[in-house]
């Protein structure tokens, strides 16, 4: 007859007890910390709770996407900071992807000089701390840049000075809205054309240059709308007034430094991701495609790129997340994003715990969204295997 295991040796019981002990320990530690915190905060006369978010902020914010005055609440200030973070992150993601892809492909160029120059770029930027790079960009833009009167003009209308970078922008006209509508319509029509072309080829074997047609549509329709509306092209040209430029779109040195610094740094990492993605597709794939008679362009489009993208996209999304988190370094150069504004808030209200917890929650939410996107992508495109 089999003997019953001694109670003490029953693995399930032991596991349950162990877990209970762990949870009890964590809860006890948590309670201890919370208790100390409350005592300390009471002693220092710091309030608790999130009601401070409704109080008047009474500090200035240099750049904001929405209207903000010092009379607005801390809550609104936080929103301003969040929007600034998202703005820098969105622009940074787009620019660094473009730059990174170019450099990544340059790393695989036939030209030895181009390969080595790309390598120098990647190795230099990856081996220097990001904060140092941001500070260098900021100093270059702030200190070495000329005063507005002697601003540098690399392109007509674009001025670089100590006050930042200023671009000419077209004055808004209703025709632009029509152009936008035309563009969207053209995109939809173009997509329909491409879809039809694919079906046509499947049915008859003859290819129609639908891609070119779609591109022509996307470019031509807005152009037609533009011309039909009378071709309004009034520019808001930056002009020098007293100590600064007026008109046009201006970027502060802080914003420019943050954007360029983050872009250049992240592009170096993206370059490596793109390079290893393309190299990661085994040579046998290109050989098999060539042996079947596929031309270089077809091989790239049908065989290499689909497989390379599978390797590239997950680490790319991680880089985007890293870029968003790295934008918090803006606190060191004075751009008012989420971290900076949280810092000012907690300095003024003294409610460090709430402010920091709120900020961390927001960053965490952004991270989770990107992780979710990554998981969805991975699940959809994974190679089907046994």
């Amino acid at each position, binding site marked *: 007859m089999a003997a019953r295991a001694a109670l003490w040796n029953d693995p399930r019981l032991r596991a349950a007890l162990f877990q209970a002990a762990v949870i009890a320990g964590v809860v006890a530690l948590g309670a201890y910390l919370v208790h100390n915190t409350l005592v300390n905060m009471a002693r220092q006369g710091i309030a608790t709770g999130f009601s401070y978010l409704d109080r008047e902020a009474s500090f200035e914010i240099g750049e904001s996407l929405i209207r903000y005055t010092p009379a607005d609440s801390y809550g609104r200030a936080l929103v301003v900071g969040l929007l600034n973070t998202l703005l820098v992150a969105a622009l940074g993601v787009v620019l660094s992807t473009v730059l990174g892809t170019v450099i990544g492909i340059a790393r695989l160029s036939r030209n030895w000089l181009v390969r080595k120059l790309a390598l120098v770029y990647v190795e230099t930027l990856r081996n220097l701390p990001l904060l140092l790079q941001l500070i260098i960009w900021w100093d270059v833009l702030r200190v070495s840049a000329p005063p507005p009167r002697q601003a540098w003009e690399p392109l007509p209308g674009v001025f670089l000075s100590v006050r930042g970078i200023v671009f000419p922008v077209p004055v808004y006209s209703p025709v632009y809205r029509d152009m936008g509508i035309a563009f969207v319509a053209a995109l939809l029509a173009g997509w329909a054309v491409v879809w039809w072309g694919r079906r046509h080829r499947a049915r008859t*074997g003859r290819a129609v240059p639908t891609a070119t047609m779609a591109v022509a549509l996307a470019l031509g329709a807005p152009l037609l709308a533009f011309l039909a509306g009378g071709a309004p092209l009034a520019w808001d040209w930056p002009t020098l007034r007293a100590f600064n430029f007026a008109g046009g779109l201006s970027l502060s040195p802080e914003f420019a430094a943050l954007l360029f610094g983050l872009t250049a740094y992240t592009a170096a990492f993206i370059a490596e991701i793109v390079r290893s993605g393309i190299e990661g597709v085994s040579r046998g794939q290109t050989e098999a495609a060539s042996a079947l008679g596929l031309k270089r362009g077809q091989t790239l489009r049908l065989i290499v790129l689909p497989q390379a993208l599978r390797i590239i996209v997950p680490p790319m999304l991680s880089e985007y997340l890293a870029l968003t988190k790295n934008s918090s370094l803006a606190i060191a150069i004075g751009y008012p994003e989420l971290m900076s504004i949280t810092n000012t808030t907690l300095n003024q209200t003294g409610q460090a715990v709430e402010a920091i917890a709120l900020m961390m929650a927001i960053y965490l939410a952004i991270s989770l969204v990107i992780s979710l996107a990554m998981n969805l992508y991975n699940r959809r495109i994974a*190679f*089907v295997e046994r």
Partner: protein
Amino acid sequence: MNGDERKAMIELHHVHKWYGAFHALNDVSLEVARGEKVVVCGPSGSGKSTMIRCINRLEEHQQGQIIVDGIELTADLKQIDAIRREVGMVFQQFNLFPHLTVMENLTLAPIWVRKMKRSEAEELAMHFLERVRIPEQAGKYPGQLSGGQQQRVAIARALCMRPQVMLFDEPTSALDPEMIKEVLDVMVGLAEDGMTMICVTHEMGFARTVADLMVFMDGGEIVERAPPEKFFAAPESERAQLFLSRILSH
């Protein structure tokens, strides 16, 4: 008629290839007639794979002439494309496209290179899938198949382009022993149907069954060429004797 006079399907005349300082192919000359089956054997590093990869321009030869079905192989892209349409290749590592189903693997080239209609291409693909005896796998992905099945799909994929010549680069070397037979059976069937074949392989049983000509290579040169009966029974060169004694000992 032109076709009868030009007997050779593939001609190599004094072909040389270097990798840097390494002389990979040394004065290689070979003629393969239409319908002939040539088996190339030799120790590793002897240039066997290099030679057949030169035939469809996966490698470039630096000296000598390679002529396939009357078309000379040069740097001219048009001629290379024309040759690749007529020459099918089966790789040691299968090289199936993992992101496409078996059916899509087979129909890809007929649709994009021979501009076939999709329905025609799929009919063709099913025909060859039945030929290699796995028609039920058409909707699966390569990752879901065994090694032997994958290689048979690779053979079908090459056949879908209706090549005049089939090149095999050690097709069974990456397979588990119990799957080698199913692939060799397909290759024997192809041979019996009259396909011109050049096969690099260590499978001597297959060679004895199928080959019209045995070519032994070593150190980048063709050391010996003879019909299989003569080659296996009485190899002339010492190197061939050494090779055969090693490979046939187990």
